[in-house]
Structure formats: structure tokens, C-alpha cells
């Protein structure tokens, strides 16, 4: 285009402000260009997220059954759910699950990142190995865990019994409330820790060495250095990682669905698994959608707070 113009000009053609040029000038305006670039993303998200999302909201407000639309019922579905103690249990489970898993991921993630940041031999290999659980499809790796927690063939119990840590048959990992919650949390931490550690590592790498040197000159111990230099500088990264991890953890489906299907006695149900059970297996799409939608304002609140925090930083 630009070259073509120059050729035309050099050939003596007087450039009229032609249609193409006008178009180009129009396109080069900052706001037009801005809107133009964001249009594909908006079209996609409106058609394939916002529109189905709107439909889901409509489901939740009507007596909708899978494949069979029903009458508008206002907030009935929500009322029905809130009065159901299985749902209240689900809410409680979700918070316990998310809080504990996130806590472990944060502490262990920082610790692991600090270890990985050291200049060791086989650094690449180590980082790659640590990242594995994150890379491998959850739907498949969880099956491996399931086999490890099996009531008869559990390798965990087998080992603990041989080491005389517990007496046979040992804990029933997926059948007793506290153990089952522990099991799903362990698998979630296993799966999410690499993302945490590698992202925090990325943040660590970007901290300029001078900061540490200054602290060292002041004679700070390594623990003090961590508290006064590393942690404050990591805060923005941590906020982002925690944000994403909250989303992943709160909305988890696969781990619980494969390991316990919400059992024992609904003590490991999360929003996604309970919504699946009510809305799909039971056909009550309206209620299922309402359960899923409860997830949204909660996530939204968490994310809103965290985003505000990030912006302030």
C-alpha cells in the first residue's frame, strides 16, 4: 500500500484523497483500531459464552427440564436449593476444599519456588519434573490416584502398614468423611502446586539481585531476607496466582467426580459435581443451573477483591 502510493506519486499522479486512503486514515484512528482489534474476541465471547450463559440464567429461573422447557418460576429454584441441606453441605465443602487446598498450595508453592530458584545442576530437568502433574490430563491422572486410594489395593496403606505406621487395614481414604476430603485435597494440591510454584518462580527470577545484596550488607538472615525482601516483592505475582488458583479450585469437577462422586454422604460434593448430579443425571436443569450459578457471585466477589488489590499494588 505505502509502496504503491510512492510509485504512483513518483509517476506524477497527483494523489486524490481516494477511498482507500480515507479508509486507511479512518482505520488508523486510535479508537477505531482499538475497537477493530477487540471485535473478534467480543464476537466469540458474546456468541459462545454470554449467550449460553444468558440461557443458563433463564433455565435457573424456570421449571426447565432437560429438553423440556417449562414455565417461568422466578426465584423458586434458588429458594428450593437454599432450603436443601445437601446444598448447604456442598457450599461448606466448597469453602473448606478451596481454603485448605489454596493454603497448602500457597505455602508449599512458595517454598518449592525458592528451592527451584537456586542455581542447581539439572535445574531444567528438576523444573520439568515438578511441572508434570500440571501438564498431564486430570481426567487420566486422577484415575491413577484413585487406584492408589483403592480400599483394597491402596499403595498408601500398604506402605504405611509395612512401615508399622498404622495397623491394617488402615484408613478408608474415599469412604470416611475426613479422609475423603483429605484425599481430594491432596490430589488437588498435587495437581495445582506446579502452576503455583512455576509462576512464583517466574516472579522470583525477576527480583533484581541488588535488593538481596543490600539486605545482605545489612546482615539480615535468610529468613529476614525472605520476609523483608522476597515476600513483599512477590505480592503482585502471588495475588495473580492465587486469583487463578481460586478459580480452578472452586470450580473443580473431575477430581471429585472420579474419586468420590460427592460421597461419602455428600461430604465432598462441590458446586460442579452437585449441579451435575441434579441437573443432568436427575434431569432438573433449572435447579442444576441455579446451583452452578451460585458459584458465579462467589467467584465474582473473590475475584473483585483480588483484582482491586492487584490494581492498588
Amino acid at each position, binding site marked *: 500500500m505505502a509502496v504503491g502510493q510512492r510509485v504512483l506519486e513518483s509517476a506524477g499522479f497527483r494523489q486524490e484523497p481516494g477511498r482507500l486512503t480515507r479508509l486507511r486514515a479512518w482505520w488508523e484512528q486510535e479508537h477505531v483500531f482499538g475497537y477493530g482489534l477487540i471485535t473478534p474476541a467480543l464476537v466469540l465471547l458474546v456468541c459462545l459464552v454470554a449467550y449460553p450463559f444468558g440461557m443458563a440464567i433463564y433455565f435457573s429461573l424456570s421449571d426447565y427440564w432437560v429438553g423440556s422447557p417449562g414455565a417461568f418460576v422466578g426465584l423458586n429454584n434458588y429458594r428450593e436449593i437454599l432450603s436443601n441441606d445437601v446444598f448447604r453441605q456442598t457450599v461448606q465443602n466448597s469453602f473448606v476444599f478451596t481454603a485448605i487446598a489454596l493454603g497448602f498450595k500457597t505455602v508449599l508453592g512458595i517454598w518449592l519456588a525458592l528451592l527451584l530458584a537456586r542455581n542447581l545442576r539439572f535445574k531444567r530437568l528438576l523444573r520439568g519434573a515438578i511441572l508434570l502433574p500440571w501438564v498431564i490430563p486430570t481426567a487420566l491422572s486422577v484415575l491413577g490416584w484413585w487406584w492408589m486410594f483403592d480400599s483394597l489395593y491402596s499403595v498408601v496403606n500398604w506402605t504405611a502398614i509395612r512401615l508399622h505406621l498404622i495397623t491394617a487395614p488402615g484408613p478408608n481414604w*474415599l*469412604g470416611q468423611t475426613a479422609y475423603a476430603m483429605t484425599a481430594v485435597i491432596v490430589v488437588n494440591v498435587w495437581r495445582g502446586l506446579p502452576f503455583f510454584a512455576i509462576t512464583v518462580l517466574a516472579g522470583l527470577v525477576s527480583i533484581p539481585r541488588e535488593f538481596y545484596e543490600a539486605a545482605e550488607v545489612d546482615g539480615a538472615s535468610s529468613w529476614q531476607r525472605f520476609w523483608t525482601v522476597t515476600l513483599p516483592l512477590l505480592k503482585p505475582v502471588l495475588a495473580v496466582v492465587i486469583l487463578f488458583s481460586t478459580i480452578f479450585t472452586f470450580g473443580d469437577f473431575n477430581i471429585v467426580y472420579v474419586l468420590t462422586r460427592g460421597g*461419602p*454422604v455428600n461430604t465432598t460434593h462441590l458446586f460442579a459435581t452437585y449441579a451435575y448430579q441434579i441437573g*443432568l*443425571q*436427575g*434431569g432438573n436443569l433449572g435447579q442444576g443451573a441455579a446451583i452452578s450459578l451460585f458459584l458465579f457471585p462467589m467467584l465474582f466477589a473473590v475475584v473483585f477483591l483480588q483484582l482491586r488489590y492487584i490494581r492498588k499494588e
Partner: protein
Amino acid sequence: MQTRRQFFRVTAGAGAGLALAQAPALAQKRELTFFSWNHFVPASDDELRKQAEAFGKANNCTVRVDTVAHLQMPAKIAAEAQSQSGHDMLRTASADTFLYENLLVTLDDLVDKLGKAAGGWYPFAAEMNQTKSGWKGVPWFWVSFPGTYNMAHYKKAGFEPPKTWDELLKQGKVLKKQGNPVGIPISHCSDAHSTYWSVAWSMGAKVLEPDGKTPGIKSEKTERVIEWYKELYRDAMEPEVLSWDDAGNNRFILSGKGSWIHNPISPYNSALANKQPIADDINHHNSPGGPAGQHSAPPILGLGIWKFSKNVELAKEFITYLFRKENFDAWIVASNAFNHPPLKHFADHPIWARNPKFAMLPKEAEFAHPRGWPAHPNDAVQRIDDNYIMADMVAKAVNGMPAKRAMEWAEEQVARAVKGQLKVS
């Protein structure tokens, strides 16, 4: 060909949308599609595909059988129902026929024809497919749910297989001391409800009143069921039953540790197929009874046709073909006696009589009921099972909740399942 068609579909979809995308593929052979589960005995699916191919050849069409794991079916079926598109036929399980009553083709004529030709349908299999608006599925097969026991352990304890649930409890106490506990899942899996329904019926308890709308749990009889479960759990089983999935009890009996489970014959068949020596020790007996008689709640499966299908007639022909005596027989043989026919005349297949370990299985039909009985099945029955209400009631009780409170909890949950019933249009 495949990719060209897809390309066409994509461009059409992106360009002109609905109208073009649905343009008939004139040059193409008719294709009948059938959505089914991964049969628990793989050879049964091989035989099904073989028959599908033969049917296709004879009728100048292709029949595609897509199968997935049974736990993955609900999501897929729901998506097809919701988008009004997908396969022509599907395998229905339990009360699917009621859940999708509005969306399935009524098959009264076909069911009538097939039934007359072969001695009529077993009532329990028929009821599962008979909705208020007609037959929404052809009963395909049912799966007997006998007692499965380890003969060596039983011999060591000097017991005969139990005739009643109370006898099982007595035996279990001894067997557990011997190191060979019994196992009934009290967890979120479908075997857990199959057993609960039979135990409850045998002791005279019920879940729904005959009207199908009123919860009928709170009673002394249910309390007795709960107390029986508590005792069995404490003295004859190990806590692992609280975590089992459908495969849990299979592994338990196949490992050689367990002495008794309540399950279809799949563990025995799989031990045979894998040449595990334990196959010799495993035997079956009819599902136990109780003071209110002998009752069983076998899984009942059907064949449904979506209303949105464009091949309804062809699908009916295919079903007729599957129900030809020689085809059905071959399919029973392929499943090694796992698939029980819902038609009376098909039930005298020699495969059961020939193997003494299977001989008693057809008798289960005499005392089988659809879930929900004494109520006629309905979509709420599906939710009672899918929400694991009865298994959870028992689990709560064995974990220390008083039986009365556990029953109240279950009654309230059942009331919820019934409350929002599907409106049939």
C-alpha cells in the same frame, strides 16, 4: 468423504447457518446411529456391532454403534435431548424413559408385535418402559442381581448360601471373624441402590407410596432395614464398603478376601475371561428374601428412539432385527449369560441350564420389580437413585445418626425429588 462432508458442514454452518447445514446428503447411504454403553462384558458389544453390520448390509444402510462408559452417558444424553440432535436411538436405563418422556417416540405397535411373537414381556421390564403417554422404550434386557459367594470360604465356615438377609447377617458375623467379610456398598454407586431396594422390599419397607407421589419411608419396617444394615456393617463388613464404586465389590470378591457380594455375574465372567483361578471358587445363588418375601431390583435396560430422529422407521426395523430369536440368542451367548431377555420365550435359552452356576439366574425374573415399586416407576425414581438418597440414609445411620433422624432426612429428600416432577406435554 467424511472430511468433505464435514467441510461442507462447517462452511455451511459459518455461512448460511441452519438451512444449508441441514441440506440432505443425497449421495449418501442412510446412516442409523445408536448410542449405547460399554457393555460390562465386552464380547456382547462385539456381537451387537456384528449384527448391526449385517443389518446394514441387508438394508442398504450403515448402522453406527457408539458406546461410552456408563457413567458418562447421562451428560451425553442430556446434551442430545437439549440440542435436539444426535443419535437416532439410545440405550435407556432405569427411568430414562420417564425423564425423556416428551422426547422419545411412542413404540406401542412395535412393543406389541415383538411381545406377541415371543410369549409376552415380563411385567417388571414392561413397567419400566410404560409411561402415561405410551411405551417409550422397548425393554432390551435386564441384569440378574444374584448373591455371589466364594464357595471355599463358605465351606470352611460350614454354611450353605443364605436364603434370607437375616441369615446373611448371621453368616457374615462368622465369616468376618474368619477373615472373609461380606460386602454390600453403602456409597455413591448404583450397586448400592440395587441392593437397598431388594433388602427394603424383602423386609416390607418401601420408599414411595403406590401413588408415586407420597414418600413412604418413615416406618418401623424401614427402621428395621436400617438396623439390619448397621449390624451388618459393624459385625460382618469392613469400612471399605463406604467408598466403593460399582467396581469395588467386584474387586473385593476377585481378590479372594470377600466371601459374599450382591452383584451381577460380571466378576465371575471377568475371572473366566482373565483365567483367574478364583473363578472356580465363585458361585451364585438367588437374591435373598425376608419376612415380606423375596424381591429383587435388577437393572433394566431399554431401547428408545428420539423424536428428532429422521430414521424412526429404520430404527424400528433394526430393533425388530435385534429381537429375532437367532440374533438375540447369539447376543445372550456373547455376553455369557449376562444379558437376560425381557421376553418370556427367549428366557429358556440353554446357556443358563447348562452351567450349574447360572441355572438359578432366570428365576430372578419371578420376583423382580422396577425401582419405585409398589409405585409405578416415574422420573422421581431416577432422582432418588441419582441423588443416592437411600444409600446416604444408610450411610448416615451407620456413621452414628439415629435411625429416626436418618429416615426423616431421607423422607425430606424424597419429597424434594417428587416435588418438581417433569410436566408431560
